[in-house]
């Protein structure tokens, strides 16, 4: 049996009547224990989706369940780090961690939080307002992990970090998640940041789900093909194709074996994501519903 971390059905969110929807009928399912990347261009609805999962916003339409409960009921079991890492500037690092302990009396683990802070060489009595962006990110992550969440929602977590700190924090995060079976959902528009860390992908575009499913399955469902420009790729689904001279390069979802005239390679995560971002009209693909797939 696989537990479900997040399940969304026809989830929509609109900010004001005149603006278009930030999320538009999203349906997807994220199994527990995964490290999921939420990818998409700016304004695709990544932050909105994470806020809805954290119970900070109310959906305009549709439903979202988190750990089998409503986001509000699952509040204790999830942690969320917003994009701009809000913290109280007048508190010290130690007081910020104390705040986590006071507000999460039944879950808080001092050792986890203090270790993450100590790894960054942060003085406990330093005021938050004196910290750099990267140091604030570290404190915000310490606050989130100290809660011992079952689901960790991170909105652009590594944007302010230098490559070394990013590598180190990502390793801490992944080790912690692996040790405790935490589900991690991480949004980013830097695909390279996520490669190697994630095993599940949710690609959003214009508020809709473009790709959803285990990363390996999604990669296996696509082929990067090269062949003659006048050859036909029917009946396969072409996500994106480019012609250079007489040669055609395309990302396709093969429907059966490809013909002999094609050279095929497996796409990387970056190639898969970029091809979908360049071709917003390509059909969506969801591989996260085992029940439906079996039918």
């Amino acid at each position, binding site marked *: 049996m696989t537990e479900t971390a997040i399940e969304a059905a026809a989830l929509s969110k609109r900010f004001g009547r005149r603006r278009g929807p930030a999320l538009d009928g999203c349906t997807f399912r994220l199994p527990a224990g995964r490290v999921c990347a939420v990818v998409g261009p700016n304004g695709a609805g990544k932050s909105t989706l994470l806020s809805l999962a954290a119970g*900070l916003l109310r959906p305009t339409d549709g439903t979202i369940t988190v750990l089998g409960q409503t986001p509000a009921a699952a*509040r204790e079991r999830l942690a969320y780090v917003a994009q701009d890492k*809000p913290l109280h500037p007048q508190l010290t690092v130690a007081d910020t961690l104390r705040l986590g302990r006071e*507000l999460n009396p039944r879950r808080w683990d001092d050792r986890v939080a203090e270790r993450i802070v100590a790894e960054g060489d942060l003085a406990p009595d330093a005021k938050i307002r004196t910290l750099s962006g990267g140091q604030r990110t570290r404190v915000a992550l310490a606050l989130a992990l100290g809660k011992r969440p079952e689901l960790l929602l991170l909105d652009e977590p590594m944007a302010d970090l230098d490559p070394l700190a990013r590598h180190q924090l990502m390793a801490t995060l992944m080790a912690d998640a692996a040790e405790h079976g935490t589900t991690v959902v991480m949004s980013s528009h830097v695909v390279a940041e996520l490669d190697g860390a994630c095993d599940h992908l949710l690609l959003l575009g214009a508020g809709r789900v473009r790709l959803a499913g285990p990363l390996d399955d999604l990669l296996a469902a696509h082929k990067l093909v090269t062949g003659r420009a006048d050859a036909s790729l029917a009946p396969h689904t072409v996500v994106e194709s480019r012609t250079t001279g007489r040669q055609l390069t395309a990302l396709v979802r093969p429907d059966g074996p490809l013909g002999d005239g094609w050279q095929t390679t497996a796409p990387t995560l970056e190639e898969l994501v970029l091809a979908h971002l360049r071709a917003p009209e390509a059909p969506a693909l969801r591989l996260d519903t085992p029940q439906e797939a079996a039918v």
Partner: protein
Amino acid sequence: MTAVTLETSTAATPTRGPRGLLWTMLRLHRSALWFWVMLVAVGAGALLWAYGPGADAAWAEFRKAGCDAVSPGGLTCDMGAGAAYGRYDAAIALGSGVLALAPFLTAAWAGAALIGRELESGTAQLAWTQSVSPARWLAAKLAVPAALLVSGTLVLTLVHRMVFSVDGALRLTGGSRAWYQGATFEANGTLATAYALLGLTVGVLAGLLQRRALAALGTAVVGLAILAAALGALRPYLWPVETLTDKNEYPEFIGMVVGEGALTSTGARVPDPICVDNAKCLAEHDIVGFYRDYHPASHFWPLQLVETGIVLAVAALAVLLAFRLLNRRTGAAA
């Protein structure tokens, strides 16, 4: 594994929750708390000084001028206030001034620092993703300052009443601070506390509406000023007035005067044609007497309590709207 954690999270009672929120509130708003303590101390100190050495000095000054000899009921010297009396009056004005200012300071602080800034910077969302629901967060934001405001304003009100109860004779000299005058009226009863609470709730509502510190500060102060002006204008009509009439001249000017004018032979109330003693003019206008509507000092508590009730009802409405607004936005019932 998941089933076990689920059980513990629903079975355990949130015993430390309120204590954690209390610590958070006091730690986050430590400077505001100290400022309020200082303000109450300054106000109470000024009033206590006036009660003791301030009043003694003022009396000594009047005695030296021979002003206390005329009658036991009051000082009839027309010399105006001396320096000692001026200091005495200023100290009392400071005490009641703190009470008059408190609602506006509270509204500005609640709109900007308590709510607006937290929503603007995202620290409110930080709290809501700990084990604290938005509703409990808002409840703590209201309850902790409310408790401190009630204690502080009650201390000042009691000290002010103590001073007011013994300084009748001194007051007559200055001709100031009658029981019904704005700051004095509020500082002597339950209204100072009620208005402070109104300031808090209006500020919180403004913060939730604006979601930005500076805009919330403006909205809160302007909103409270409008409410206070409207309620202040209503004040004389919150309890039935008493009327004095006289055939020849205006009745004695006592208490809070609400209305006055001339009476015709049919008993109708008309604006005074200002005939003074001109009998022909009076006959022409059919004026047979004069009236004056007023509240005697015995109306102090009825007026005070009715207005307090209205102010608290408005504050409760603001609280209700604040919870509704927060709930609609976050969709968090729990």
